[in-house]
């Protein structure tokens, strides 16, 4: 690139920033929406359950059961009600919705545990809401596991309490960890794809595209100038989301921040390319927005796995999910942020994402219209 081209590019990028900062709606879209989404998903829509009413039936009434019940009571997730109910009574309570779960300690609980090194706890949960049931069960199991770990530390004798469910990476099933990577994918998709496509379609609508075409500007320069501002804004947004998740949602980034930013840049580029692709077909800003929402936002929400598990979907939908870039990005972010894994764990996803991006860019360059029709 010679200096003349750089000058053109710089002037164009400067112009794009004028557009962004002079339109309140655009500003709101770029900075308001991401913040609102993180807060919304992080706090309000979290799937963590606080203060669920459960009943504890302690038939053992021994040291072990008391200890565990105390732990359950101390947890902010449960509101414990102690009663010696029969199975029928428990069922009635569950059915009426008075309680979400019942925990039953059998006779000789501690006795079994200390002599046979093995004891049972029965957990009955209201599975009409499977998500809540699973979550509550997990909370409880982790409390029991806690107790066992402490007991092990004290006595050096391994004692087993069944059931035992292992919860990886997110022992408390917090809402934020699952949502933040999803929101990141969603927000970046929204800003990059939608705003880029709107920005280009706007030029068509306003008639300025005509003048840009009838100028010495090279097509790739127009594309670059249209995408760079949104790339920068997106990285800024990414930083904001990460800061919010660390300081507001208490979610630490376990892996490399640099790697996270690099992978995000790759994803952002793929989103920008998608936005360009949409802008080629759309004739009005409205159409561009609708297309972005239908073809990008929805798949990102539905098919990345952050709202609904992909494994539970019909096969054909799972198939579609393989071409959604956010699916890979979601996996990558989870790996880096929550699991603290390095590049070696995500190179496959990165490769697929890079491939999709490459294909999109090639398609765009070939499809860019050098004329009006």
């Amino acid at each position, binding site marked *: 690139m010679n200096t003349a081209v750089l000058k053109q590019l710089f*002037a164009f990028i400067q*112009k794009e920033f*004028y557009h962004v900062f002079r339109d309140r709606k655009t500003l709101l879209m770029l900075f308001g929406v991401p913040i609102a989404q993180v807060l919304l998903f992080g706090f309000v829509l979290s799937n963590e359950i606080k203060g669920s009413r459960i009943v504890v039936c302690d038939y053992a009434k021994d040291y072990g059961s008391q200890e565990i019940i105390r732990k359950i009571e101390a947890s902010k997730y449960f509101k414990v009600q102690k009663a010696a109910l029969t199975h029928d009574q428990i069922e009635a309570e569950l059915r009426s919705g008075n309680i979400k779960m019942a925990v039953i300690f059998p006779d000789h609980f501690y006795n079994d545990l200390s002599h046979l090194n093995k004891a049972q706890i029965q957990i009955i949960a209201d599975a009409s809401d499977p998500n809540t049931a699973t979550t509550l069960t997990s909370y409880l199991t982790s409390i029991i596991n806690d107790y066992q770990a402490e007991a092990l530390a004290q006595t050096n004798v391994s004692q087993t309490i069944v059931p035992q469910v292992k919860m990886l990476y997110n022992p408390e099933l917090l809402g934020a960890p699952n949502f933040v990577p999803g929101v990141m994918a969603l927000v970046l998709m929204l800003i990059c794809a939608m705003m880029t496509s709107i920005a280009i379609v706007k030029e068509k609508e306003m008639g*300025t595209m005509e*003048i840009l075409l*009838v100028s*010495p500007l090279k097509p790739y320069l127009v594309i670059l100038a249209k995408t760079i501002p949104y790339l920068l804004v997106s990285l800024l947004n990414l930083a904001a989301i990460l800061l919010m998740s660390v300081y507001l949602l208490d979610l630490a980034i376990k892996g490399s921040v640099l790697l996270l930013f690099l992978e995000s840049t790759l994803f952002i580029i793929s989103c920008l390319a998608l936005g360009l692709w949409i802008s080629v077909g759309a004739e009005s800003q409205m159409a561009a927005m609708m297309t972005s929402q239908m073809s990008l936002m929805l798949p990102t929400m539905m098919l990345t796995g952050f709202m609904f598990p992909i494994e539970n979907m019909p096969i054909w939908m799972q198939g579609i999910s393989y071409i959604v870039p956010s699916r890979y990005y979601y996996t990558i972010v989870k790996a880096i942020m929550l699991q603290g894994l390095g590049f070696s764990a995500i190179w496959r996803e990165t490769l697929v994402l890079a491939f999709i991006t490459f294909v999109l860019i090639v398609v765009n360059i070939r499809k860019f219209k050098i004329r009006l029709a």
Partner: protein
Amino acid sequence: MSAITLDNITKTYNKGTVLAVDKATFEVAEGETFGLIGPDGAGKTSIFRVLTTLLLAESGNATVAGFDVVKEYAKIRDCIGYMPGRFSLYQDLTVEENLNFFATIFNTSIKENYDLIKDIYVQIEPFKDRRAGKLSGGMKQKLALCCALIHKPRVLFLDEPTTGVDAVSRVEFWDMLKRLKHQGISILVSTPYMDEAALCDKIALIEGGKILSIASPADTVKKYPGKLFAVKSANMHKLLQDLRSYEGTYSCFTFGDAMHLSFKQDADADVSKLTAYLTAKGQTNLEIAEITAGIEDYFIRITEKLNG
């Protein structure tokens, strides 16, 4: 070398169902101001878009500044200035920002070609910090012209530059075009206003995608066949009906505050006979005078023939 040549250019839309330009052929000489005159929908904008390399014609050849509009479109884009019919600048950028932007993308600067736009720019300079969207119609046109001129184009394309602009600004605008002509810039300008046609070196009348006449404005009006009369009376509405039912009338239409009347043959152009006819119809305060036809008269005459 000609600034622009068109050879049998045909342009259709909607897969050939709508014929916008029908075998248009004309030539614009270097340094000439060439007017494309015709009503809305005549095909003027289509011709502009073919020449500015924005659209591809179905058939025919065209060159701008010696370059082929299809094969050498990139070279054309380097050396032309284009002002589309619709105001096409950035409304949220100020006057100065718009001008700076277009100067830069054309690899030049305001300073470099300031003398070219000076006359126009001094008029909008007091508003240079105002957003383009907040300018008046006339100011917008001046800014658009500045932006189209900033890189000293060899050929300037102005598509209906004065549509929607007040009368005073229109006169000013054409004064500016006259000055540009002295700078040696070839100009293709379109307008639906016949009075502006007289300000061009050469005009092409266009209707329904067909070029009907190409000549200088003076020669164009000379082509008017027969005599033309302006008729006025106390009751203008009835006068139109009376004149149209007169046996010798070829055509009659309202033109400003008078009726323009043409006859089937010069022999019919008998003022005393017409006066007698109109008086018998009860017309008073009659004024009948022979006039020289204007471009609009000629345009109406030939399009009437076209429309049967």
